[in-house]
């Protein structure tokens, strides 16, 4: 027998358990609510950005430098946004400074179990743009703009940008 509820919260609980529930809405009408799962595995190529992820597995961080105008990016970018020319790969220093930061106490479902975590934009000497990463090993009250940080790399790569993260320089 399908169960009926007057509160939508109870409907949500019931469909997680038994796949379907009836909701008696404020107008007195019955709405049938069902659970509808969805999963997919994409075949994802990093294409022109591949070198960045390969180098992460070797403990190296790469950005891009424009061949024509010399603009230096803290992220991979195969063509320059300033002048449209091709860029060259440029190895980034492993030490930088916090350009901006936050501590996330909530997150998307995928990262909820990792909260709280710190996000930082890291700026590198002589590079025009920063790099988005995690800051590990520091609490909210320890972090400030201008703080010295250095890159560390995951021992077992997952071939994701999160294979690199930053820690405070002690």
């Amino acid at each position, binding site marked *: 027998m399908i169960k009926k509820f007057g509160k939508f919260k109870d409907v949500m609980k019931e469909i997680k358990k038994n796949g379907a529930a009836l909701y008696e809405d404020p107008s007195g009408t019955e709405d049938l609510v069902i659970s509808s799962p969805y999963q997919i595995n994409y075949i994802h190529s990093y294409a022109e950005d591949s070198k960045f992820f390969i180098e992460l597995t070797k403990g190296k961080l790469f950005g891009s430098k424009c061949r024509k105008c010399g603009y230096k990016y803290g992220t991979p970018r195969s063509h320059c946004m300033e002048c449209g020319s091709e860029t060259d790969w440029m190895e980034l220093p492993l030490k930088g400074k916090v350009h901006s930061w936050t501590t996330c106490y909530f997150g998307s479902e995928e990262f909820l179990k990792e909260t709280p975590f710190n996000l930082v934009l890291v700026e590198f000497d002589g590079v025009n743009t920063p*790099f988005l990463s995690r800051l590990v090993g520091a609490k909210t009250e320890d972090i400030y703009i201008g703080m010295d940080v250095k890159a560390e790399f995951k021992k077992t790569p997952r071939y994701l940008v999160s294979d690199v993260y930053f820690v405070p320089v002690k």
Partner: protein
Amino acid sequence: MTKFAKAHPDMDFRLMVKKAYDYAMADVPAIKTRDIDSSRISYFSDHFTRQLKAASMVQDYLGLNPKDSRRIEWGGATGGQCIQAGWETVASGRSDVCLVAGFETMSRVETWKGNEFIALASDTNFDYPVGGFYTGYYALMVQRHIYKFLRKTRFAGIKDEKMAQEMATREAMRIMAMVSVKNHMNATANPYSQYPNKLTVDDVLKSEMISYPINRQSICTMSDGAAVLLLASEDVAFKYTDKPVLIKGVGCGTDTMRLADRPHGEVPRFPWEKKSDYENLDYPGVHSFRAGRAAALEAYKHAGIKDPKKELSFVELHDAYASSEIQTYEDIGLCKYGEGYDFVESGQPFLKEIDYKLDLKNKGIIPVNPSGGLIACGHPVGATGIMQGVFAFWELQNSIKKHFGNSTLQIKDAKRGLIHSHAGTGSSVTVSILEAVKHD
């Protein structure tokens, strides 16, 4: 417009739009479905609908086949962009009457899954895997804004860098809370809003921390809802109503998808700003929205606006976060870059007639988000920008009382309103200027 709500399990997206559509049509009895030449239909995310071509199903349900139609999607600015798409359809002469309709059904997944869907509107190679979370991105941006514009001004005298930054952040949190108080309070007179509330600065500051320094009461929520507008050419509009509203100017701006890639250059200035106003300001970096500035520059030029604070009667802007409301004041020239916090404290964006229980010296100079904004109205993405358009339309028609059942939010002699729709950490922004044509 439907009421924005956490969930509408009794209506699917087609019925929500139909209800909003029927309401609008009943408001202009002279116009019939056969008079509509085309539609522009917006919703943000295929992930929420899990139904591709949902816009075609709306077209179908409204009985608009076989007329010209298309779907519009532009992240958080989907609704604002849909209005401009409708405007282009009429302005080009292709249609005499174009229906602009938008919706979102975000209740179809749980909140944190919904946040994941939204975060897929960030670079999925470089931003999302780090901890994809929009509140986190906006927190990164406002932290830099606080550093640039509060730490270096009000706390310039503090030698200890860390302490100065902490003090500046606390100050900013207090001022952001004032924005949240304003928007929630305004919404108490708006029956279409999701979270009307009488809050104090303390209530806001005590709400859960989501991404430091942004807390729960300073963030919009996920919603279900729909909104529509009917756009018509000038000749045709007067055939159907003696109280149309003119779309006087439109503007649109863009920026890099990854916020890390934002350049550090010069400010594109309004005619009333001087080069010396912004010496040594690396712009936009992550502290300001260049797309918002570009959209406002275009819209003001198109509408012939030379002094927005004087020439606009109100602004409805995309306050997904109280922080981005403050950043946006500066982008659209309600104050200069760096003056956003002072602007709030002065009281200028607050409504004159409402008692916020705050000490505000200069209330009502240019009311911002009189509707309650996204923070209090809710944010069913594809409908949000159109909701701003509907609200502005009613303000400029002087018909708030008719639609809300009270006139608290009716701005007297409202002549011109600005609506602002924003997406993707500031990667896409629209600004449209609406103008009253006739008054009672």
